[in-house]
């Protein structure tokens, strides 16, 4: 124990003597959280809060055109423009404006679109109520069918496209239903010779209420900060492998390690000291990143990071991630031949493990095989654990699996390192 403290003290001295390294160690994660959260905050908002710019051109001038315009305007998702200030809005100019990216979407309801619906409704209903079997087209002579044309900015995301198409479908269905109903009502009153008109009411029916599934948490919602701070924190914490492997390889190259190997048992102690110190470094990084999420980012307009109700579980989780990162660093530093090897392999491997772990792209949208592979990424365990705490409101018992995996991973890494240096005597 005394030797462990001595070793930690030595590592501490080495660490604080490298002022530039120290600054990088603590400022980079803060910077990372800052940038990543702000970037993603915008994309989160674009879907949720900011409106999609839509150009709308109604050549129909009838129920469908009016219905869609009203629908778009009242939905709140779209900023609808129907007139240009100094140019005429037509299909051509619309196409150009959308391609140039000034508007993300252009919608044209062509002339006669409502008429097309009417004709169809008419023919269907007449068919139902007439005894003869008459071909509908021949009777009403549908020459030209109106339609809705949608121009998309090629840059636009699929999810936006889906949103718009769904909305259009919805408005069109509404208008169609109304027209069908009107004809139907007219036909019925004609047949029954009543004066009472049937009224169409599109409201009512089954209502859909939107809610986020939350187990125990009620006050926090998934937002960019709740998502990003834990995700990038895990990522940043794993990056301590770079200074850690540097420390190990420097010690080996300087030959100090030879002295340690001549002192019985001191190599393992020295390794544990490195792990302990770098765990503390990781935890400080983590706290700094949380502070950014709680106090600094909100100044720039993001939501405030909420730590969830289970602070003890949070500390345990952070500790487990730190332990895994330090273990991985010790393993890499011991096995790598040079610091260049360790740094480049280390950095790339963390990025790959992060990608697999769902830090760039959520695991659930990965292809099946990748989803399985992602289960083996320690960064995934870290991320899942933090999501449990930050998003689902889970407690200590909910993250036991992740903690267990991370701790086991760390132990395996340290054992590999220890065995490797013991056996590797050429």
């Amino acid at each position: 124990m005394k030797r462990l403290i001595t070793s930690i003290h030595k590592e501490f001295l080495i660490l604080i003597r490298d002022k530039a390294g120290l600054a990088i160690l603590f400022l980079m994660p803060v910077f990372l959280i800052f940038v990543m959260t702000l970037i993603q905050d915008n994309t989160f908002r674009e879907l949720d809060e900011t409106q999609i710019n839509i150009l709308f051109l109604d050549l129909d001038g009838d129920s469908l055109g009016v219905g869609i315009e009203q629908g778009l305007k009242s939905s709140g998702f779209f900023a609808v423009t129907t007139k240009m200030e100094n140019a005429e809005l037509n299909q051509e100019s619309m196409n150009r404006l959308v391609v140039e990216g000034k508007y993300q979407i252009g919608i044209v309801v062509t002339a006669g679109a409502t008429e097309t619906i009417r004709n169809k409704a008419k023919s269907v209903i007449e068919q139902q109520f007439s005894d003869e079997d008459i071909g509908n087209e021949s009777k009403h002579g549908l020459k030209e069918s109106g339609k809705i044309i949608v121009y998309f900015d090629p840059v636009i995301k699929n999810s936006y496209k889906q949103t718009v198409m769904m909305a259009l479908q919805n408005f069109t269905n509404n208008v169609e239903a109304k027209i069908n109903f009107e004809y139907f009502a007219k036909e019925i009153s004609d047949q029954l010779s009543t004066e009472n008109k049937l009224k169409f009411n599109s409201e009512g029916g089954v209502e859909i209420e939107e809610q986020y599934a939350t187990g125990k948490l009620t006050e926090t919602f998934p937002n960019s900060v709740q998502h990003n701070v834990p995700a990038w924190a895990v990522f940043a914490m794993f990056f301590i492998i770079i200074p850690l492997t540097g420390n190990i390889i420097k010690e080996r190259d300087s030959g100090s390690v030879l002295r340690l190997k001549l002192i019985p048992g001191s190599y393992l102690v020295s390794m544990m000291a490195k792990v302990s110190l770098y765990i503390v470094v990781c935890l400080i990084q983590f706290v700094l990143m949380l502070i950014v999420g709680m106090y600094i980012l909100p100044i720039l307009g993001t939501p405030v990071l909420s730590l969830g109700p289970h602070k003890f579980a949070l500390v345990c989780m952070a500790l487990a991630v730190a332990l895994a990162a330090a273990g991985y660093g010790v393993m890499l530093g011991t096995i790598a031949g040079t610091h260049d090897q360790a740094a480049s392999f280390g950095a790339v491997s963390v990025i790959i493990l992060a990608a697999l772990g769902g830090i760039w792209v959520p695991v659930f949208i990965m292809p099946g095989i990748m989803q399985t592979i992602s289960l083996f990424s320690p960064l995934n365990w870290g991320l899942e654990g933090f999501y449990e705490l930050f998003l689902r409101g889970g407690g200590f018992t909910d993250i036991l699996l992740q903690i267990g995996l991370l701790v086991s991973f760390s132990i395996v890494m340290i054992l590999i390192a220890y065995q490797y240096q013991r056996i590797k005597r050429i």
Partner: protein
Amino acid sequence: MPLEPIIQIENLTKTYRGSDVPALNNISLTISKGEIFGLLGPNGAGKTTTLSILCGFLRKDFGVVKINGFSIEKESNEIKKIVGLVPQEIALYETLTPLENLRFFGKMYGLDNDKLRQRTDECLTLMGLDKSRNKLIKTFSGGMKRRLNLIAGILHEPKILFLDEPTVGVDVQSRNVILEHLNEINKKGTTIIYTSHYMEEAEQFCTSIAIIDSGEIIVNGNPGELIRQNEGCTSLETLYLLLTGRKLRDN
């Protein structure tokens, strides 16, 4: 008086992986307790390799090696307790001070605080580093680093001390200080095994030497006697050149 052997090496052979010539080829040596033993030879002769095997950093291919009666494979922990090493390269933490380095290694060796303070004071003063005890090592000159490198190996007063070229790159004053100190340690009972390229130094300093070349031992014995036995040799250097030739090594 019958000399008690402390290091016994028999038929030691070592070939590095990927190399087709052995770095050590069937070496046999006996070093007695209390000796100052010089392992001499040109660059690439196998001196560092021999010390590395004795310290347990390298695995031997073949042969028997015993230190103080302990097998280097099976009883390495027993051996570690009685040996000290001064490596050829400076093996210290550059961003720490001498005091911090020595405290660290001393405490790792389990020295208690009083003993540690006494030893660091004594050694630093003796090696003329007392005034620099709180400066970072990376600011030191080569000679200062060498002296400190030496102290780090003797702090815990080992029974057997391995030194790999401790006097390389130091001035005459430092060299004398180092050799004098080693002599003193030797008088207190430490067996010293040291490697060097300096024949004159070895001739004066060593009670016994071995000249090794291309992984083989060419001669082994008391330097004075060896010079006398070989006709025309007036010093260890002439003997050395006679035996190892004049062509360059290590290329």
